[in-house]
């Protein structure tokens, strides 16, 4: 047995300890609470994926996009050793909204899957059903309230009609998420909720297709920003010119993931700012 040279090993051990300490501190630094809520409309091609990150880093992902591309864009907005999400919300069963879920749970620890439609539940995930009236309390005063569908309707609604729709509020700022909701359901929401739908940022329904974004609905919502999540040169021609014109007519600034890449909003409950990847 060769004798161990403790003089050298001392230095190695010291180095290893410094290294570990650095990593632990950086973990703490990154997980340090902030005072703002961050919402990232991820650039995942044609589909939806939106990450909500609260001041204490409770993370809710709304939809997962069509495929693995989610993972790349997710890691561009999360620190590299943050490998867990609290909730994954699947709005409805279309593949461009839930196709990436399987890839997500292989790479990230996801605590719960939440959805209205039980058919989208993955067997390996704890599932919580959510309906109109459900309020998800994400801490720090961040509340996600589900507006549609109700528990009674859910069985009878066609896929897009049953899209989970909800309002996220933090202080004075509000965000509306509509998944693939068609115009008829938008009008229904206006009837049911009226001025409660007024928000700062609207996730434009169904990637800006012409069958969504009803003018009456837009006039009630009256968003400052309208975010469109669509793929570059997608084969459906989303978003359509008619829809873009309708959105412009209510005075909203349009932001598109196909043009700007991932779009990030930041708010402390009062002020709202955004940045984009491109």
């Amino acid at each position, binding site marked *: 047995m060769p004798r161990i040279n403790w003089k050298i090993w001392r230095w190695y051990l010291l180095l290893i300890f410094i290294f*570990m300490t650095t*990593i632990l501190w950086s973990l703490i630094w990154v997980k340090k609470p902030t005072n703002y809520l961050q919402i990232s409309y991820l650039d995942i*091609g044609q589909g939806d994926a939106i990450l909500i990150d609260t001041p204490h880093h409770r993370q809710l992902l709304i939809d997962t996009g*069509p*495929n*693995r*591309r989610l*993972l*790349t864009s*997710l*890691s561009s907005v*999360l620190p*590299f*050793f943050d*490998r867990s999400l609290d909730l994954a919300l699947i709005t409805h069963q279309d*593949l461009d909204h839930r*196709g990436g879920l*399987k890839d997500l749970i*292989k*790479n990230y620890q996801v605590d719960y899957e939440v959805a209205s439609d039980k058919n989208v539940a993955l067997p390996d995930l704890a599932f919580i059903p959510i309906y109109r009236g459900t309020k998800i309390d994400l801490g720090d005063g961040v509340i996600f309230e589900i507006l549609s569908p109700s528990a009674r309707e859910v069985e009878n609604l066609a896929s897009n009609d049953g899209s989970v729709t909800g309002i996220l509020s933090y202080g004075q700022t509000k965000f509306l998420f509509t998944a693939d909701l068609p115009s008829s359901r938008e009008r229904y929401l206006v009837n049911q909720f009226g001025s409660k739908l007024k928000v700062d940022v609207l996730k434009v329904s169904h990637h800006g297709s012409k069958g969504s974004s009803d003018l009456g609905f837009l006039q009630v919502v009256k968003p400052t920003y309208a975010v469109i999540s669509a793929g570059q040169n997608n084969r459906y021609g989303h978003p359509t010119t008619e829809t873009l014109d309708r959105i412009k007519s209510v005075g909203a600034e349009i932001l598109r993931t196909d043009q700007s890449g991932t779009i990030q909003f930041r708010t402390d409950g009062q002020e709202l700012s955004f940045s984009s990847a491109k």
Partner: protein
Amino acid sequence: MIFARHIFFFSLTGILFGLAVTNWHSVNLALGLTLFFLGLALFGLGFYYQKSKWLFLLSALLGGLIFGFWRSSLLVSLDYTRCDIGEITLQGQVKSESTDGDFYQRLNFQADQWSEKILVSLPRDQEFKYGDRLIISGLLRRPSNFMTDQGREFDYQRYLAKDNVLCLLTAKQVQKIDDGNNLVTPFFKLKTNFLLAISRALPEPESTLLGGLVLGAKSGLDQDLKQAYTKVGLSHILVLSGYNISLVAAALTGVSLIFGSVLSFIFTTLGLAIFVFVSGGGAAAVRAGIMGVIAVLARSLGRPNKAGLVLLLTATIMVLLNPRLLNFDLGFQLSFLATMGIVYGPAMFKPRVERILKSNFWSETLVTTLGALVFTWPWLAYATGQVSLVALPANLLVVPLVSPLMWAGLALGALGLVSSFLALLFAWPIHLVLSLQIYLVWFFAAWPLAEISLGQFSFLWLLIFYGPIIYWAIRANKKSNQLARAIK
């Protein structure tokens, strides 16, 4: 002795040429017979003029040529009308791991009572593994050739034919009737868990990249990033190549050497066989593996000429087993040429490089990189119509990082199988290096003239390019051989 080697060399070249020609044009009996008698006549003349060895060499070349013709005449031509059935239900076995597309997964399927395979596209929600027995119903169709982004026609039929795939099937319904558990299932499971451990420890795209470096795992890398790797001439590090294999071989030998050289050799060979099989690269990985090992042997023996001949022989045997490889498998062609470059390159470049670079590590890297590049460049340009102008600096900066990354990746995956938390701590420096690599790739790909398009050019140009390269290689290696002998 040298004469026998030359005869051997010319016959092998003849066989390859014969097969290459008949892959494109059918050769009739009359031409074959004419060449045969011409060969005989030359052979006879060779005896008559005892001094001229060229006559023998020419007759060896012709002999090889005819042998090549004969081999390809045995090829059964593929009957694509069998794909025109339309809707069909088939029972059979999965013959590959599935590769993930954006919306579909693909796998090779061997239907019962079919001698050829079928490439099946299925939705991504179900998972299948090698050996599963399935009943698939869907639409059967012919593969059709298409235009690439560079405006060239891509011969999809022949590309699939090299793997004996005849038809495409878009599956509408799939039913698993038997779990394909066999001897290799545990190894596949190990590989899946290994890759999973890596993807839990590293974010995307770094985790897929590391999976590719270690195991040549094909699916999952972003299309844009993949294109960038091709653009800077680095796509070879993403697939299982002779290079990865030689590193694994060295590791296996190192571990097992205490049991004596014979046992160590058996252990290494078995280990390599399992590694190559499990990597999922199929026959292509096996071929790359064999060539990689030859290259390593050649380098360690210091006998480039013999190694070159062995390489040629190996390639010829592979092509005799599957003649379609020669013309339709770019991976095979590049593997062969790159290995030739690694074998012959050092003698060509070392004298010049050593004058400038004193560091052994860098000069070694530079000469093998240069060798591989010089031998593959013209062929790549011919086959793809694209030439990467930044390949040299990109390779020099990135390739030296590949082998430490491979080791680190193996260690990270193994650690991750034990504890994902420990792996996460260990992943930090690896993440840094991988990000650096990706940064370099993007950096070089963004250069205005990173890649230029040449379009289609004649095969004759290729001969004009390769002529001087081969002449240079032979002369340089002769010189270094003489030098070696003189030193002895």
